[in-house]
Every structure is written in structure tokens, then in C-alpha cells.
């Protein structure tokens, strides 16, 4: 078997191990199911009563924002899972085995992808209940979900670096939030960035989360063609921009995470 095939094969074995763990900790399962439901309901009914966006209903606008926010938040699990394995000495054991350093990280990111699929299913169901609809073809809708999952997968590698760099698993969440809070909020997820102060507006326009949110909205038919998303290139070409962001994140963070992993020892 080729080296890549072997690394992925070992990754799948490890992903199964992670999923078995998740199934055995009901709390962890519940949080990745309940959080998306809560976010959907809270934003739809609380903020939805006050926020207006031009061209579409707020629910229609909001739901994709919540989808993206949820997969971004889920990426923290990648970091905390790795940090916990380091602390328990399990990474020491894995590193003493003749497997590719990529395998453990592939295993982790694959199982977190599965977790994201579950979260998205739950959110779609909740979204449909509060009146959100997909107004596009099956092909476009499928492309929208694939894009969302690809972005989530790439982001897992970013947060893997955080998990492999911190000194204790307890720190992962806080450290991660310093990255993902601005990522989620200085963006077009909940409101249109048109009215942001100039600096924040530019950041929001070039934020990968904004590109992905805009792209998925377009693919789900949740946008109004009469109200364009603004003049910035990543929003005008959101699907291309999203793919570019995903490629850049993977190209930079896969080797980066792997080099951190090679140095990780129980502390």
C-alpha cells in the first residue's frame, strides 16, 4: 500500500476510536446536538425580532450564519481532543508506533467531520421548523453542504495547531475562542457588515467566514439578487474565494499541525 494510503487507513482506524469515545460520553454528544438547536432558536426569535436585513427575511438570512458559526465552534473539539490525548500520554504511545504523523491528525479531523455532519443535520431540521427553506436545485444545495463541510474540515487543522501548542487541555477552549469569536462575529453571519465601522467592515469582507457564509447562502438560494452583498471581491466571488481560503488553510496548517505533533510529548 502507498504511504498516503497507509496514513489514511490508520487515520480511519483512529477516527473510529474517536467516534467510539464520543458515543460513550453522552454529554459531549448532547452539546454538539443541543448547541445548534439553541443557537437557531435564540437567534431566530430573539435577534430576528429586532434585526432587519435588506432583501430577504431574517430567518432566511440567519440560518446559514448559524450553520457556519456551529461548524466553526465545533472545530474547538479537534484541539481539545488532541490536547487531552497528549495529556493522558496516549500521543506518546501513538508516536512510538510505526505510523505516519499525519495519521493521528487525519483520524482526529475525520471524526470531527462526522460530528459536523451530525450537527448540520440537526440544524437543518431545526431551521425547517422555524421557517427556513432552501430555494435552489438539489445540486446547488448539495454543493452548499459540501462547501460547509470542507471549510469545517480545513478549520479543524487550524484548531489542531492550537490543541497541540497549549500546555493543558483546559486552556484549549479559551485560546481557541480568541481565534473563533472574531472570526464568527466580525463577519456577515448575523448582520450585514455594510454598517460596520470602516476597519471592521474591511476585515469582515475579507474574513473567510464571510466568504463561506455568502457562498452557502447563494448555493441555498437564501439571497436576493436585487441586493448584492457589497463590492468586495471575496463576497462578489464567494464560491471561488471560499475554495481558495480552504486550500490556503489546508496547505498552511496541515504541515504546521504535523510539525507540532512531531514535537508533542506528555507534559
Amino acid at each position, binding site marked *: 500500500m502507498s504511504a498516503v494510503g*497507509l496514513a489514511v487507513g*490508520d487515520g480511519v*482506524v*483512529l477516527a473510529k*476510536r474517536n467516534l*467510539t*469515545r464520543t458515543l*460513550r*460520553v453522552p454529554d459531549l454528544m448532547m452539546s454538539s446536538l443541543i448547541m445548534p438547536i439553541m443557537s437557531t432558536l435564540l437567534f431566530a426569535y430573539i435577534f430576528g425580532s429586532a434585526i432587519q436585513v435588506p432583501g430577504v427575511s431574517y430567518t432566511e438570512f440567519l440560518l446559514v450564519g448559524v450553520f457556519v458559526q456551529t461548524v466553526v465552534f465545533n472545530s474547538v473539539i479537534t484541539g481539545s481532543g488532541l490536547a487531552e490525548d497528549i495529556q*493522558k*500520554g*496516549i500521543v*506518546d*504511545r*501513538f*508516536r*512510538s*508506533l*510505526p*505510523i505516519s504523523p499525519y*495519521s493521528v491528525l487525519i483520524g482526529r479531523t475525520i471524526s470531527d467531520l462526522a460530528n459536523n455532519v451530525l450537527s448540520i443535520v440537526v440544524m437543518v431540521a431545526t431551521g425547517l421548523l422555524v421557517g427556513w427553506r432552501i430555494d435552489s436545485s438539489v445540486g446547488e444545495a448539495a454543493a452548499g453542504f459540501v462547501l460547509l463541510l470542507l471549510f469545517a474540515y480545513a478549520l479543524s487543522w487550524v484548531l489542531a495547531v492550537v490543541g497541540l501548542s497549549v500546555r493543558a487541555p483546559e486552556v484549549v477552549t479559551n485560546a481557541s475562542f480568541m481565534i473563533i469569536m472574531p472570526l464568527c462575529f466580525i463577519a456577515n453571519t448575523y448582520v450585514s457588515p455594510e454598517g460596520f465601522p470602516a476597519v471592521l467592515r474591511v476585515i469582515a469582507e475579507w474574513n473567510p467566514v464571510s466568504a463561506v457564509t455568502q457562498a452557502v447562502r447563494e448555493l441555498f438560494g437564501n439571497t436576493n439578487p436585487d441586493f448584492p452583498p457589497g463590492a468586495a471581491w471575496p463576497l462578489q466571488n464567494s464560491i471561488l474565494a471560499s475554495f481558495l481560503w480552504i486550500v490556503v488553510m489546508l496547505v498552511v496548517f496541515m504541515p504546521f499541525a504535523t510539525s507540532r505533533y512531531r*514535537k508533542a*510529548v*506528555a507534559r
Partner: protein
Amino acid sequence: MMTAAIVAREVVKKYASVTALDGFDLEVAEGTVMGLLGPNGAGKTTAVRVFATLIQPDSGHVEVAGIDVVANPRAVREVIGLSGQYAAVDELLTGYENLELIGRLYHLGKKGAKARAEELLEQFDLTESAGRRLKEYSGGMRRRLDLAGALVRKPKVLILDEPTTGLDIRSREATWEAIGELVASGSTLLLTTQYLEEADRLAHRIAVIDHGKLIANGTADELKDQVGGHRLEVALRDAADLDHARAVLAPIGHGEPVATQEDRRVVVPIAAAGGVLVEGVRRLDMAGIEVIDASVRRPTLDDVFLALTGHRTDKAAQNGEGVKAEETKNEEPVR
């Protein structure tokens, strides 16, 4: 000719504020058991991690089973088994699942991994608990499972880092038995420990490490000989006489007598056994010091350790559980 399973030459590993290994040398012959003995922070775990390819040395040369650990870590990982300081097991998986996972990652295949897992569970007397999650295992059972994990691939070189630290006496006995069986099967074993009894019982040879350097190396007997002859040990009726007794006994020893408050004992290094016991007791008697017990014995590894490093092993100093009474009775030397 004996071939070396582990060779380390002039190994240096520095961290920001400490030099963990400072020109460390070691040679472990194939098929033997080497006990790497040293206090906390002496560099034992760093050495183990270098041998197991978990960290790279800053300089020096290390070969395991003839393979350079820096140049070819992957090949080293094919032939070693490692069991770290805390049991590196997955608490949410069952005993069987833990071993099967490791087997899969050694590429034994589904069937191979299953068969090997069952074999090891049997060997380590864990078959009955195979289907239970590790959370429900006792500390000793986890250790045994972790040890089993290190053996999945039948390694040429087995590396165990403090395999019994934190275990109660009974679990320690069970772990020793398991290690003893491995040793009998002929694999090379490097074992780090803070317990002198452990090194004495399991290892063919003992290497003493302190401040990142090898400070002694030999069989337990050789090390005991190295620190010299014998020990005269007396127990007194009254702790108040300890200082007096030290002064009285000093002229007949060839080293500084050491007193321990708690058990009211004085230990004096002596050159030869002949006549010293009688002489010592006579002198104490003349000084009016009441003796309740007196003996001449060979030095223990604890004496060796004290002589070599200038301090007791941490475990002995803490009166560590499970260490022979003979080795723990010296709480704090009175100076």
C-alpha cells in the same frame, strides 16, 4: 560476541532552563535487563524518550537495535515497545479495544490484531475484564494493560518508564511478576525506576543517572562492592544518644557514620567485617550507650545511591511504600 540493543554516546538534551541529559552514555546488551536508576529529575524520562524516538537529542549518538534514532525513527518504532510513566491507555475504550487498536496501528490486520489482543489479555490475566472500559480498571490493571500494549508487536527492545510508580504493593508485585515473565522470554528490557528494590529484583545490570550523566554502571553486586565493603548498623534504646554514638563509632569506620532519628539507628561504612561488630558494641557500651540491635551487613542499593549521589532516592526519603523496610527506615539523616 554480545551485541548492544541500545547504545547511547555523549547524548545531550537541553530545555530552556535545564540540561536534562548532559553527555549521557549507556550500553545495554541484547537479551539483558538494564535498570536505569536515578532520583526525580535526573534525566531518566528524557533518556527513555530519546530512545523511543519521542524527542530528538541536541547532540550525541543513539542506536536502538542497531538503528540510528535520529536518522531513522520510523524503523526504530517497528522494533520497540514503550510503556510510559503513566498508563497510556484510553479510559473510554475496553481493555480489548485498547489492545486491538494498537494491533491495527502496527498493521497486524483485523484478524491479527484481534488474535494478538486476546493472547495478551490471557497472558496478563485480564481476560475476564476484557470487555470492561478502562475507567473501571484498578491502577494495577491499567498498568498491566499498558504493558501488554507495549508488547503487541513482540518488540526486540522493550522500554518501560517507571512501570510501578504510583502502584500499591500488591499491584507492584503483580506487575513485577509480569515483567519477570517477559524477561524470561529473552527480550531486551530497559527499565527506569526510582525503586531500588525494583532494580535489584528485575535488572541484570544497573545504571545510575544523576544530573543527566551516567555516574555508575554494573551489576547490583558490583555497585555494592564499588561503594565499599560492609556496613555496621546499630539500633539504640534512646534517640538522644545518636550524636554521641556517631562520635564514638567514627574512628572504626572508614566513612562518616549516618544516624537516622526515627528508628534510632546509626550506620557506619566499614572496610572489613572481621571484629568490627564486637569492637563497635564494646565502644558504645563503654560510653554508656544502650544498644538494642547490632549487625554487620553488605551495603544495600540505597547505600550505593547515597554514596554516589550524595542524597537518598526520593522514594526512600519519602519512606515510599513498598520499598523494603531496610531501605526506608532512614527518614532524614541527622547531620
